[in-house]
């Protein structure tokens, strides 16, 4: 069993901060970082076979392919079942929460910036804990 963490965010500093937190919390030893949805999607299409499970820490507002478009893109793909998504946004509103119900992969919503506590919280979510 292996869990690969993908950090998808267009903010350079946030990406670095999140990466360090993931490392420190031990959620993943080598998290992968993407600038927006499309590059993450392309990676999954070509390399999804490398790991059994992927945890995507997904921002919503991004250029090229935003969070929702990424989620739409993966639906029906062969690696769809391997993905677990935690939405990580600067602010959460009810509209986003309702929209999230349409995507079975989304297991939670968290606000930026992720700190060690938040990463530990993710680790302990039942669907994640069982994979670690």
């Amino acid at each position, binding site marked *: 069993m292996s869990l690969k963490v993908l950090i998808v965010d267009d903010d350079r500093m*946030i990406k670095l901060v*999140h990466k360090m937190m993931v490392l*420190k919390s031990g959620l993943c030893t080598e998290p992968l970082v993407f600038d927006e949805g499309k590059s993450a999607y392309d990676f999954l299409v070509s390399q999804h076979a490398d790991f059994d499970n992927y945890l995507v820490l997904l921002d919503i507002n991004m250029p090229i392919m935003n969070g929702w478009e990424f989620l739409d893109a993966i639906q029906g793909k062969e690696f769809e079942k391997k993905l677990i998504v935690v939405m990580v*946004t*600067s602010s959460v509103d009810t509209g986003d929460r309702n929209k999230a119900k349409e995507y079975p992969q989304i297991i939670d919503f968290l606000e*930026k*910036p*992720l*700190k060690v506590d938040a990463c530990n919280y993710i680790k302990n979510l039942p669907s994640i804990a069982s994979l670690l």
Partner: protein
Amino acid sequence: MLSQEKIRLLVIEDNQGDAFLIREYLEEISPESEIVMVETFAKAKVQLLLPTKFDSIFLDLSLPDNSGEQLVKEVVELAMWTPVIVLTGYSDQTFGIKTLSLGVSDYLLKDELTAPQLTKSINYSIERKRIERKLKKSNERYEILSQATSDTIWDWDILTGSFYSNHGITRVFGYAEDKIENTEKWWHSKIHPDDYENLASSLATNFEDGISLFQLEYRFRCADDTYKYVFDRAYLILDADKRPIRMIGAMQDITAKKQEEDKLRLLESVITNATDAILITEVAKVPETEHKIVFANEAFTKITGYSREEVIGKTTAILTGPNSDINELNKLSEAQANWETCNVVLVNYKKNGDTFWGSISVAPVADKKGGFTHWIYIQRDVTDRRIHLQSIEEQNKRLKEIAWTQSHLVRAPLARIMGLVSILKDQELSEDFSKEEIIDNIATSADELDEIIRNIVQKTELIKNQV
């Protein structure tokens, strides 16, 4: 000749000679008549108690079993409406005269009896008794009516100034018997000072023009110094030269009615002077037909531009148009079908086609029997309020939008600052970054945040100024 052919006569006389003579006379003047002769009071009493009545009774003043005043009184009482003619001798003449005051119709001197005199006495007595009886009946009728009516009946003798009234003056106005003076002066002193002049001039018109019928409303003072409203209807009796001699009237106490009228007038003034438009429609007698407008107040004409005449007889449909919300109209129809009160807000149309927002309260009115007879529409022009509300709603919506989008924008640099600060605090973590690089980034993010917040303030000010 007697005025009636066949009459029944009772002769009460113990003296056989006198009895014979009287009978002779009576048979002479009225051969067809039935004459009953008795010689004692006891026998007379038996005759008078029989159901068959007599037309006249002849009574001798001294009988073996009764006489004098006692006898006269008892016979008169037994005779009821039958005239009693007393027969006396010279010695009794003074008493004979006195018997007239005891109810006797006539007295005759036995020694001077003649057929013509007897005829005249019988005719006269019968006729007088008949008139007396009629008069008594008429008086009785008046007394009963006077008791039965709640009106105060009065009788003014204009020539003498005397003024009489029935019990009404006590029952209605509370004057004790001993406080009532039967003079026109006393009566006139009870009329309200403010009404006196009007009453006097009305009376003067009747007097001068010789008009018999008189009626007037005025206030009359009660024993407790309060006033009652009366409606006085009277008849003025004029002599041959059209001069007023007597006036008889009936005063009706209309205080309660008057108070009710005052109350109604007060309530009406509320409707008339209200700033809300008020319409009253009459429930159609024929089901499924429209209710016609029967009343519109001043405010209604001001708000809608229709005159009262233009809307009376029309239906409330003249106020609605294509922009009137069909849902609200349906709500109203449904409430009316169930006789329920209802509040709706509708676009209404003025006479000139302009629209206005009306907040309308509709309520049914029931009569005493509980049947619904009218609908009342109270309508307030809420156009200003509506526009104000709409602009506030609009502003509110825009402010919400700003708050939402801006909070997202604010959160991004803020999140970055928070993240960077947490790295700075954690020496171990910050190995990959130079301290300067982190601080530069915090500074950039803080500037970005500052810019965004300035922007929000600016936009909010802009909206505030628009309202």
